[in-house]
């Protein structure tokens, strides 16, 4: 049920081709599509402005109910529309390129009548550049084509009615009967002529795309509990990896709000260094060695121009020019501003050094050797950590009222030096500064144990000297800062549950962060809690919580960044890679602890 033209975030499914992604609502409307890449301006942004954003609708022209699923082991979506007059099956996919004259990007919507005769309607309203620019509506060889500057999109259709342009949108109606097939193919070009596909080529690419995803899933190596959700999470992760560079977007969307009507709306279509260790860890655990290799080398390439200083996030092509600006869309359910770009780039966040060194350690542990130049770079990064760890920063939550002495940042600086020492002992990086790394690591540990521990809370604290906690403390047992079964770790886990948990979910923190309004529960933190419980020996508690969390995925197994604990409604960008990475880690933690 839409509210003011906006579908609930949990009503969306994602399809993608490793270069861009589209969000498909339960009612058959594609409300988010950027072309040609994840971080390009949108052509469909109805999710951020129902009036001006642009949509690609396809649904029965009469009242209907919907059920849907991904075709098994794929990122291809199947939606079944049931009406009084019959039912229809629609298969949506962003097809993968083949060796023929394929469109630069192609989104296929294949319609098959299942029973009865169902009147269908489709409407494509492209709005280039985040809805700012109306298209030139033209025709090429009977194909409706919309163009603007270097962008062009066309809709090739077969047995799907006679399309016509009206008010900047192309639309048609048709009826489908049992066994009848119709097809729509959105063909897109950027800075090149459009390719107008043939029906046979579209059908072949769709079939090949399904086979590719099945084969990829078949090659994954996970045997354990919650296998279906782990597989879905792996497929989401693969879908969010930008194939041309190997970088992974944090989420394929921008400005889906953390609070309805609020201002906490961010662009996640970039690659965060912070996610690197989770990504590499999950990829290696699932047997995705090619993806892990390309991801690791992307991190090293992206950071090469700035090392030993690291930026918080990088563009998918490895660049750092990411200016944050607000665009004049009305926002998801009037949640403004809608932001493009991300100002967190300018922040100082020390934890990312630990994330990168942990990534290198995991990569090395996965029997992948580091070359000498990479070892030198990692050594310089460890030296930098020795220089900066005493300084305050903006921390993992990218607060805008910092800098502060965040406990998590100190812990991750310790992780950076600990992993550097381990890599040096293994001969992967130069060992000439190892004594200094040991001294500074010991100093960090002393700081955390003395200044970041609250006897009153019986917990580590959010900030040195504070009397509160945040969800990032759950990372401490995951990063092996201390024995997960130690009294201090158990006390910290209990404090987080006591102070931040609401139902099955965990808030990030309750402290002020320089932004107005509030937010939902951080789904990622809930899975971190599962992992922390499992590693601290509380396996049955972890399993029960995991079971409940898995039931909170949407109907196709996806999660947004946050959730409203009362209503179960999703909040924030969707689907979020880090949540699915944390789910994989939680499942593996329970499996291993069991």
């Amino acid at each position, binding site marked *: 049920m839409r509210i003011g033209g906006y579908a609930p975030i949990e009503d969306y499914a994602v399809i993608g081709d490793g270069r861009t992604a589209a969000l498909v609502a339960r009612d058959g409307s594609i409300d988010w599509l950027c072309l040609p890449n994840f971080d390009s301006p949108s052509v469909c942004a109805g999710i951020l402005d129902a009036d001006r954003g642009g949509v690609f609708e396809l649904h029965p022209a009469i009242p209907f109910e919907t059920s849907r699923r991904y075709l098994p082991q794929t990122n291809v979506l199947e939606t079944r529309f049931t009406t009084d007059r019959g039912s229809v099956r629609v298969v949506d996919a962003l097809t993968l390129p083949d060796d023929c*004259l394929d469109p630069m990007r192609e989104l296929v919507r294949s319609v098959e009548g299942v029973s009865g005769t169902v009147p269908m309607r489709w409407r494509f309203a492209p709005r280039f550049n985040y809805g700012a620019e109306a298209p030139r509506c033209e025709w090429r060889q009977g194909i409706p084509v919309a163009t603007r500057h270097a962008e*062009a999109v066309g809709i090739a259709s077969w047995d799907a009615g006679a399309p016509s342009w009206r008010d900047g949108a192309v639309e048609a109606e048709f009826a489908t009967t049992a066994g009848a097939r119709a097809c729509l193919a959105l063909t897109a070009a950027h800075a090149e002529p459009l*390719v107008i596909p043939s029906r046979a080529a579209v059908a072949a690419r769709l079939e090949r795309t399904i086979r590719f995803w099945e084969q990829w899933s078949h090659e994954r190596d996970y045997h354990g509990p919650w296998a279906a959700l782990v597989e879905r999470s792996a497929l989401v992760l693969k879908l969010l990896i930008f194939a041309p560079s190997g970088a992974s977007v944090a989420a394929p969307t921008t400005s889906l709000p953390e609070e309805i009507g609020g201002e906490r709306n961010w662009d996640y279509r970039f690659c965060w260094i912070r996610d690197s260790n989770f990504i590499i860890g999950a990829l290696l655990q699932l047997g995705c060695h090619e993806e892990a290799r390309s991801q690791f080398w992307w991190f090293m390439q992206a950071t090469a121009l700035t090392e030993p200083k690291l930026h918080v996030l990088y563009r998918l092509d490895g660049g750092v020019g990411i200016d944050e600006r607000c665009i004049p869309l009305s926002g998801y359910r009037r949640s403004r501003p809608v932001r493009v770009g991300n100002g967190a780039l300018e922040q100082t966040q020390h934890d990312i050094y630990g994330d990168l060194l942990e990534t290198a350690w995991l990569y090395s542990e996965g029997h992948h050797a580091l070359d000498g130049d990479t070892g030198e770079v990692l050594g310089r990064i460890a030296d930098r950590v020795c220089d900066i760890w005493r300084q305050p920063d903006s921390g993992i939550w990218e607060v805008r009222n910092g800098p502060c002495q965040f406990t998590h940042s100190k812990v991750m600086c310790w992780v950076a030096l600990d992993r550097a020492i381990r890599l040096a002992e293994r001969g992967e990086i130069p060992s000439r500064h190892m004594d200094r790394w040991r001294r500074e690591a010991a100093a960090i540990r002393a700081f955390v144990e003395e200044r970041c521990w609250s006897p009153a809370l019986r917990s580590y604290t959010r900030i040195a000297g504070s009397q509160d906690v945040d969800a990032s403390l759950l990372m401490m047992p995951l990063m092996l800062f201390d024995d997960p079964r130690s009294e201090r770790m158990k006390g910290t886990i209990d404090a987080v549950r006591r102070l931040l948990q609401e139902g099955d979910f965990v808030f990030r923190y309750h402290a002020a962060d320089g932004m107005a309004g509030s937010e939902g529960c951080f789904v990622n933190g809930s899975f971190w809690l599962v992992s922390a419980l499992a590693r601290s020996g509380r396996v049955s508690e972890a399993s029960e919580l995991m079971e409940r969390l898995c039931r909170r995925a949407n109907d196709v197994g996806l999660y947004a960044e946050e959730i409203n604990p009362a209503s179960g409604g999703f909040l924030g960008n969707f689907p979020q890679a880090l949540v699915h990475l944390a789910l994989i880690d939680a499942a593996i933690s329970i499996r291993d602890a069991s």
Partner: protein
Amino acid sequence: MTVIWSAIAGGFLGTLALTTIVRAASELGLTRMDLPLLLGTIITDNRRKARAIGYAIHFVVGPIFAVGYAALFIALGHHSWWTGAVVGALHAVFTGTVLVNVILPLLHPRIATADTAANDVSLIEPPGFLMLNYGRSTFFIALIAHVAFGAIVGWAVRF
């Protein structure tokens, strides 16, 4: 022989300039014209190979056109950068009208035309009159690129 070699050298440099101007305009979002893709798909339907082949064809055809320019200069008994620029402008008009809309569809098995019926193979969007299907600025860019080509050939030719 001087005239031939100078024309070929000028043609190579001119093609370099023409290709760079069109590519830069494309990157700036001013046109969707992609000469290497258009030329390469005459030979193959593999878009990745097509671009490489298209660049090769372009750098072969460019000097051949330059030899034609040189023949025209000899007939006129005059050559200079501005004479070449004028010939380049005429060349652009010829390209935007006759070459891409009449001759190219005859040679190109994968470009859609007004006669294309329900297609059983994938086709490339046709350029249209003055290549305007590829963007409103396309002919202007093609004109600048060909004027640059002609000016360089006019400057380079020796006889």
